[in-house]
């Protein structure tokens, strides 16, 4: 039941407990209780809408920043990661394999704001050796959803 609930919520976080129950052949109360447990256990960590901000009047500038650091004795990468994730501009950070150590996703209001963040906040952090910033030019697909164009039903109405 857990996995089935998670699969459905991952696709549509707004699905009601009653609808989930109908789909998996359970009852509303049990589904609600299970979701509460999943939240308590921090397996469900949040619920978010996938938004195409480009279709709104809101100005946005997103950037991926690859960060190379020198890990510190005893605490490894985690402490540096924490110093980075504390900034509200950072919407995501992962430890990665390859030439760099962290992939950091920044959501800013403008390119200038992102540039300022990198030069004034990120780079000076102790242990950060170098950064490489890539601005997002166009968002095609996010969280499994194609942003670029809405899906249209092209089938005959009846067949």
């Amino acid at each position: 039941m857990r996995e089935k609930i998670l699969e459905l919520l991952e696709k549509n976080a707004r699905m009601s407990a009653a609808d989930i129950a109908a789909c998996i052949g359970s009852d509303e109360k049990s589904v609600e209780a299970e979701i509460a447990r999943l939240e308590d256990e921090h397996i469900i960590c949040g619920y978010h809408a996938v938004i195409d901000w480009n279709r709104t009047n809101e100005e946005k500038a997103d950037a991926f920043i690859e960060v190379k650091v020198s890990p510190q004795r005893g605490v490894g990468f985690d402490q540096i990661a924490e110093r980075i994730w504390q900034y509200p501009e950072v919407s995501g950070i992962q430890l990665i394999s390859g030439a760099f150590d962290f992939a950091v996703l920044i959501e800013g209001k403008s390119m200038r704001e992102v540039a300022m963040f990198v030069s004034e906040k990120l780079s000076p952090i102790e242990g950060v050796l170098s950064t490489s910033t890539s601005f997002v030019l166009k968002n095609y697909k996010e969280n499994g959803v194609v942003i670029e164009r809405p899906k249209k039903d092209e089938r005959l109405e009846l067949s």
Partner: protein
Amino acid sequence: MRRALNSFIESIPSSGIRKFFDIVAEMNDPEVISLGVGEPDFDTPWHVREEGIYSLTRGKTFYSPNAGLKELRDELSLFLKKKYELSYDPKDEIIVTVGGSEAIDLCFRAMLDPGDEVIIPEPAFVSYKPCVRLAGGVPVVIDLKNEDDFKLRPEDLEAAITDKTKIVFLNYPNNPTGAVMEREDLEPIAEIIKKHDLFVVSDEIYSELNYTGRRHVSIASFPGMRERTVVVSGFSKTFAMTGWRLGYAAAPAEIMKQMLKIHQYAIMCAPTTAQYAAIDALKNGDGDTAMMRDEYNNRRRYLLKRFRDMGIDCFEALGAFYVFPDISRFGLSSDEFAKRLLKEQKLAVVPGTAFGDCGEGHLRISYAYSLRDLKRALDRIEAFVKCLP
């Protein structure tokens, strides 16, 4: 001027689905939503489409052998063995056709002499009866019942057999009811067929959309049945490939030889691009089918629950992507119900009678739609029945 037309063809009615489609098309109302389609809402898996595109870039733009690409028939042979314990020689017992529909037409034309009877359990897909008649055969209908879960009962089959009966037609999992025949349901049917020395044409196009938790059983896998059965299937439902127009049939070599002759003269070969894509579907498409099946199953349970909560009787459909609710208690015919639902709530569904007279009192509801669409549509049905006396 002389009459251009064949009067027998003229006498064949056009499909009940088509008739309703015309009503919807005429309304031309963007508010209308539909639960009327008989094809998956999923796109063909990308790796399959990619393989079709790749075949084009390599210049694979020629006819294939009449029976289909050898590699595709080899894969089909493996697929039928692995999935349903069926053994067919890819050399002369498998043919690749333009959809399952062509395969059905080939069977009847290859097997029927004028006046031979074909038993067709109804409700059934709209094409079977006309295809039998076009091949010179006589369709004999068995009315299936809701209380039997729309399964074919041995006693009903026995009662329909005459000395003219040649073929028993089966379509499970079924369009439009979603009914499934399990091993224990098919066994007595197979015994009767052998006893009366009949043949079976089994349309198993929905075989991979089975929600029983057990695997699909083909009547051809029973002892003594292989030599008297033609299995028809295709890629449309299993791999969401309706527009590619690709199906197949598997039959004993003797029958296949004659089917191939008709196909050779009328069609030549199935589309080559589609055949290359289909090889990849068979090799690498298992996960895609499983994903779609899980999704359909969620929707199926959702619909059954909604109908039951509305107080509409709906038998537990365990296959395909249709449910077939019983709306007879509202005192409207299927046709009236569907027409008023369309007019008053702007929801298009297919009346059960499109699939035979015994579909009266029912609607075919397709769940080849997202849950979001299903929810919206079911809300409309709920609003509609609330207004009925």
